[in-house]
């Protein structure tokens, strides 16, 4: 152990906290001095955007499923808000509900982020908030066969029959499409219980990892579109022409991703250099 350390070995012994500090400070730079580069649109996001525009006619009822917690806002909220704006532009009537116990706050945040859009709309006629349903496949399946068997009332206690936009809506077949913002596997439930039995189009607007695990579903046409994490959010913001939070955040993504790449490359150069020497 006491032999002279090479440059690479010394480099490999840097305390891990040094990296944490570099990263945290590095991430702040773009918020002070924005670093912007043009963003290209990926096919899955474009399909999502065009799918909504093609399918939704004014007056159609659409479900926005909030299956991400408050904790995943930085990743999921930009895309979710952008999709809400797009749906309102297309004249859809929106049902909000969610499978996360902290869904109330997420719903309020959506309203706040799309303030300009919601101010001309009327609760109960153009949008409605039904609240929380348990994170269970049985619940999602039952929502498909009868919304009223899970939600007798909206979140504020008004019976669904007294809400104008819900009068003739009770089954999956009354819904034009479902957009699910996920951190977990709730979208699986919508695929299995809504898309396959009833043919309701479903799209995913969740965290980036789901962009990998749901890619086969998108490729096989089970999902009509997919937005991948905050990058998808930035693409959607570009498509609807309202650059917002995700677009700003792409600066931080640039910095952090470059840092990760440098780390991996340096580490592997060091690994092969010291391995060569040992031989």
């Amino acid at each position: 152990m006491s032999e002279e350390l090479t440059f690479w070995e010394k480099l490999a012994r840097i305390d891990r906290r040094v990296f944490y500090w570099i990263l945290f400070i590095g991430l702040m730079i773009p918020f002070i001095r924005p670093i912007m580069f043009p963003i290209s649109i990926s096919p899955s996001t474009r399909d999502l955007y065009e799918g909504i525009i093609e399918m939704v006619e004014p007056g159609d009822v659409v479900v926005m499923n909030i299956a991400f917690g408050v904790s995943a806002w930085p990743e999921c909220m930009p895309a979710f808000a952008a999709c809400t704006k797009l749906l309102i532009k297309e004249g859809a009537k929106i049902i909000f509900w969610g499978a996360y116990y902290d869904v109330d706050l997420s719903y309020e945040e959506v309203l706040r982020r799309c303030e300009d859009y919601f101010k001309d709309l009327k609760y109960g006629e153009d949008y409605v908030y039904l609240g929380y349903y348990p994170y269970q496949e049985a619940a999602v399946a039952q929502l498909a066969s009868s919304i009223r068997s899970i939600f007798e009332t909206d979140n504020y206690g008004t019976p669904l029959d007294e809400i104008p936009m819900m009068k003739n809506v009770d089954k999956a077949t009354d819904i034009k499409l479902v957009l699910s913002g996920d951190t977990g596997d709730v979208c699986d439930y919508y695929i299995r219980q809504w898309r396959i039995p009833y043919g309701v189009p479903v799209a995913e607007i969740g965290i980036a990892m789901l962009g990998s695990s749901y890619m086969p579903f998108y490729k096989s046409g089970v999902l009509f579109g997919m937005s991948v994490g905050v990058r998808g959010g930035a693409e959607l913001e570009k498509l609807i022409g309202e650059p917002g939070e995700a677009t700003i955040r792409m600066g931080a993504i640039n910095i952090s991703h470059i840092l990760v790449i440098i780390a991996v490359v340096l580490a592997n150069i060091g690994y092969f250099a010291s391995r060569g020497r040992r031989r």
Partner: protein
Amino acid sequence: MVGKREEEDMAIIVSGRGMALVILVLSYILFYIFMYLGRKGREIPVRTLPPMAAIPEGIGRAAEMGRPVMFTPGIAGDLNDPTQGPQVLAAISILGYIARECARTGVKLDVFMPIPTALPLTEETLRTAYMAEGKPEEFSPDMIHFIAGQSPYLTAVLGYFQRERPATNFLIGGFYYESVVMGEGGNTIGAFQIGGTANTHQMPFLVATCDYVLLAEELYAAGASISKDPDILGCLRGEDIMKFILIALMIIGFILGFARNPALINVLRW
């Protein structure tokens, strides 16, 4: 496209779901046959899994270096959880094998167990393993370090890495992000690492930090190859036959694809 409930004359099965029913029934028949055969004593082998073959190597390495071996099943789930539970169970079966190797070679084994419901089973497994090698006196419950809570668990394992510098780490079970931290910690002390999980979200980290990794179903197969559970092994054999059928379908369909013949696709949409 997707089958809707169109009432057809005389139809019993909903259109578009026929093939699904065939797959379901066929799978069940195969599972049942091989479970039955397994219970009758027919041996169903599990193929050589390099990570399992590397376990003696890892323990031998620890014996040479005179350092301990560490095992942990991750904190993702409780035994009662339908997705994480089976992973932890498989991991505990593998632990039985590791413990026997350790007992035989006289290597010290440390188990970090963050799941309270799995504690009794772990203790039982270790006791049995040491007994089977004729060294019951070498087993002590202190080998199992129970730490509840994710961050105390992480802190304890990282501290242990620095203090004891284990020669080999086994990170096998249902993991959450602790896989990155432990994989990195073990790497920094130059430990030989064998990982395994069925949680897709942690596989990349285990692949990048471990020398050998059991991926997805391999974990269950490895567990079953040690516990010799005829139900699991029988189902695995049944699954394999279904996979061969799918592979055959895909090869035929792939060739038909060049001729743009949709016959097979239409059959699958039945």
